[in-house]
């Protein structure tokens, strides 16, 4: 590989870091992030992890967090920072860019660098590289799986087969949706072979590309890796079985009742034209347009200089299948788009090079290059806006069921009361929310000892409810007034998510004491 290529890749990675790293703690924790943080805490503090087939996906995120936290200055869970947790997806987000060297020969060096650049500035990739969820791990290992499989097909080396197998194992141990990526890969391969036969008369023959022993070794390693993670490294024998049983609840969720059921154009709207309210139009349409050029050229041209036609055709069909699958499944969350968006980005790299090289006069080439650069800059600008200003705003297409900053004011008040309370962080505190809709409060109130364990997290008002501070759904106000009305008062209302608020109940005498101390602060001038 040339020095220029590596230098280019490193510069792109530096840009990716610059867009992803600043103010990692700025956005309030999303419910999913808080849930994963609590799951990780159990692994970190108690060495305990047990796979739950009903929720939370696989364990790779938590195990990947262990070394990051070990290298951080965070001493314990009480002082664990959001930025430390979010550094994990950031590493995978930047790693995904560096990993593109593995497909340099398949895409061509120039196309690879363009694809790296687009990954670095893609608003979706930047946003979710700062989001403590599994998606970036899944995308990175999907990429590694495809790259290894391609190298194996080219060289028939057992090493590449094993790497593909290991990647497959990690994919499975990361998220249940990995099966969609695998199915899309199989579908993509089949469609590529069919296309080659139809357009170019090349007979379908997999045998010369495969060695059964290599295939078995890869599958065995995939099972071993996946089994190791799901069994909590061979301490929970049921884990691997549960990882298969998990598909029943997830299938039910995919077609059943859920707030995450959306029509098929959901991803297209969010990725390519999103304009809700004043502010910028959000669009990554440049990637789609360039991807269509790249895929179209691969389908209808006989050769692409410096690139592997079959790999690009496969990539196109794989991306098409993955996009179709995710669009058809009713259960949708915007981060699921990353898998097929990354496929589009790789194709877009090819498309950009074809576009720039298509023009004969130099002026046309320069104009095409300038347009691609301008569009890339526009993506970077959106990525910056999405993480510095619109990070919790529903005008940002990647903000989804996001916690609003207002809840941090409530947490600040609880902390301030704890400072004057004789019991400090042991003060009796309870959270009562209809449908247990109180996340991410378990993360923000993790220092309060009375909230450790399930005893003080309720979905209804219990007759024996007793606490100095109660955070509650407004719907429960009548029941709480009956239970606590004589001794407590609602002292504030705070937003948890847009249009979903929580009441802040405090024991009246405690509140008076707190406010008297607060009155030491100057009163407003009259």
């Amino acid at each position, binding site marked *: 590989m040339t020095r220029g290529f590596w230098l280019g890749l490193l510069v792109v990675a530096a840009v990716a870091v610059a867009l992803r790293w600043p103010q990692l703690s700025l956005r309030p924790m999303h419910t999913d992030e808080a849930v994963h943080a609590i799951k990780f805490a159990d692994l970190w503090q108690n060495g305990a992890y047990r796979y739950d087939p009903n929720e939370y996906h696989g364990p790779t995120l938590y195990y990947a967090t262990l070394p990051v936290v070990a290298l951080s200055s965070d001493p314990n869970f009480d002082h664990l920072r959001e930025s430390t947790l979010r550094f994990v997806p950031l590493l995978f987000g930047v790693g995904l860019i560096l990993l593109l060297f593995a497909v340099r020969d398949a895409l061509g060096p120039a196309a690879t660098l363009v694809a790296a650049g687009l990954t670095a500035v893609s608003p979706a990739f930047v946003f979710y590289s700062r989001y403590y969820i599994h998606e970036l791990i899944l995308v990175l290992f999907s990429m590694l799986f495809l790259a290894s499989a391609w190298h194996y097909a080219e060289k028939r080396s057992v090493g590449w087969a094993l790497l593909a197998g290991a990647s497959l194992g990690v994919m499975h141990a990361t998220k249940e949706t990995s099966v969609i990526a695998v199915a899309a890969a199989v579908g993509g391969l089949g469609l590529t072979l069919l296309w080659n036969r139809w357009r170019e008369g090349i007979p379908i023959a997999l045998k010369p590309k495969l060695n059964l022993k290599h295939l078995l070794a890869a599958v065995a390693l995939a099972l071993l890796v996946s089994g190791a993670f799901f069994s909590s490294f061979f301490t929970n024998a049921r884990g691997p079985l549960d990882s298969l049983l998990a598909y029943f609840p997830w299938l039910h969720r995919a077609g059943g009742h859920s707030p995450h059921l959306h029509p098929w154009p959901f991803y297209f709207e969010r990725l390519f034209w999103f304009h809700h309210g004043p502010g910028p139009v959000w669009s990554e349409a440049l990637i789609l347009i360039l991807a269509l050029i790249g895929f179209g050229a691969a389908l209808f041209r006989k050769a692409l200089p410096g690139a592997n036609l079959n790999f690009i055709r496969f990539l196109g069909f794989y991306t098409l299948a993955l996009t179709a699958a995710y669009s058809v499944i009713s259960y949708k969350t915007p981060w699921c788009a990353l898998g097929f968006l990354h496929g589009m980005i790789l194709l877009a790299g090819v498309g950009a090079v074809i576009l720039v090289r298509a023009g004969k006069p130099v002026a046309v080439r320069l104009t095409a290059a300038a347009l691609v650069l301008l569009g890339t800059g526009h993506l970077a600008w959106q990525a910056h806006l999405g993480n510095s200003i619109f990070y919790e705003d529903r005008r940002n297409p990647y903000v989804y069921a996001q916690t609003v900053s*207002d809840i941090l004011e409530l947490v600040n008040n609880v902390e301030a009361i704890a400072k004057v309370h004789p019991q400090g962080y042991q003060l009796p505190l309870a959270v009562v929310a209809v449908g247990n809709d109180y996340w991410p409060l378990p993360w923000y109130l993790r220092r309060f000892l009375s909230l450790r364990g399930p005893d003080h997290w309720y979905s209804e008002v219990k007759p024996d409810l007793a606490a100095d501070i109660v955070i509650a759904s407004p719907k429960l106000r009548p029941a709480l007034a009956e239970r606590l009305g004589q001794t407590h008062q609602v002292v504030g209302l705070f937003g948890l998510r847009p249009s979903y608020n929580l009441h802040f109940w405090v024991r009246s005498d405690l509140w008076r004491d707190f406010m008297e101390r607060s009155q030491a*602060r100057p009163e407003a001038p009259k």
Partner: protein
Amino acid sequence: MHCRLTDMKQNKVNMITFGTLPRTALTLLLGLTMATVTLRAAQKEKAPLPLKLPMPAFIGTPTDIPIDEHVEKPSEDPRPPFLAPKGVQNVALKKKVTSSDKSPITGGVELVTDGDKEARDDSFLELHRKTQWVQIDLEKEYEIYVLLVWHAHNTPQLYHDIIVQVSNDPDFLNDVKTVYNNDWDNSSGLGVGKDKEYFENYEGRLMDAKGVKGRYVRLYSKGSTYSALNRYTEVEVWALPAS
């Protein structure tokens, strides 16, 4: 204004007519007359404020109605007419606005006093997070009777740390009078406020300024239950020229 001129003319006539009376009686009468003038000025003839409200952008009150020390219960009924001295006008209309945020997220500062208070996407100024302010220069001192503010009434939400101050000092360092302050926990650091938080709606928030005098009006806020950003759709300042 008409009333006050009439009173002054009458006062002059009275002084001429009684000019020949003994000095003590004259002083007493003069004092009485002055007191009457003052009282009548204080009890200026009042009339309902001629407000033009925007279209409601949502129907009904928020379902999670709090009844507590700091948050006002939203009313299902229209706000009763507010009686202000006759002749008051919205002196903020089209006046110059400045802001703590030199590069607003959306909209320009002129939207705050452009007379458009509809809950449309292009009718508001949007400032960054944390405590921010807008300031209106009324161009001369006024007796301010009513302040009305619409932050964002497109959805039920509650803005925090609403502090409204009037001053003749454009920097608000001296002679600052606070008309409204609901920063109950002093999180904006301008002092603890005793006024209530409230849900935004199409009627805007009416603040009784009680004739406070000043040239500059500054309005603070610190995000809402909906977003950390600060929106200002319109501010009206109903006032009479300062006497």
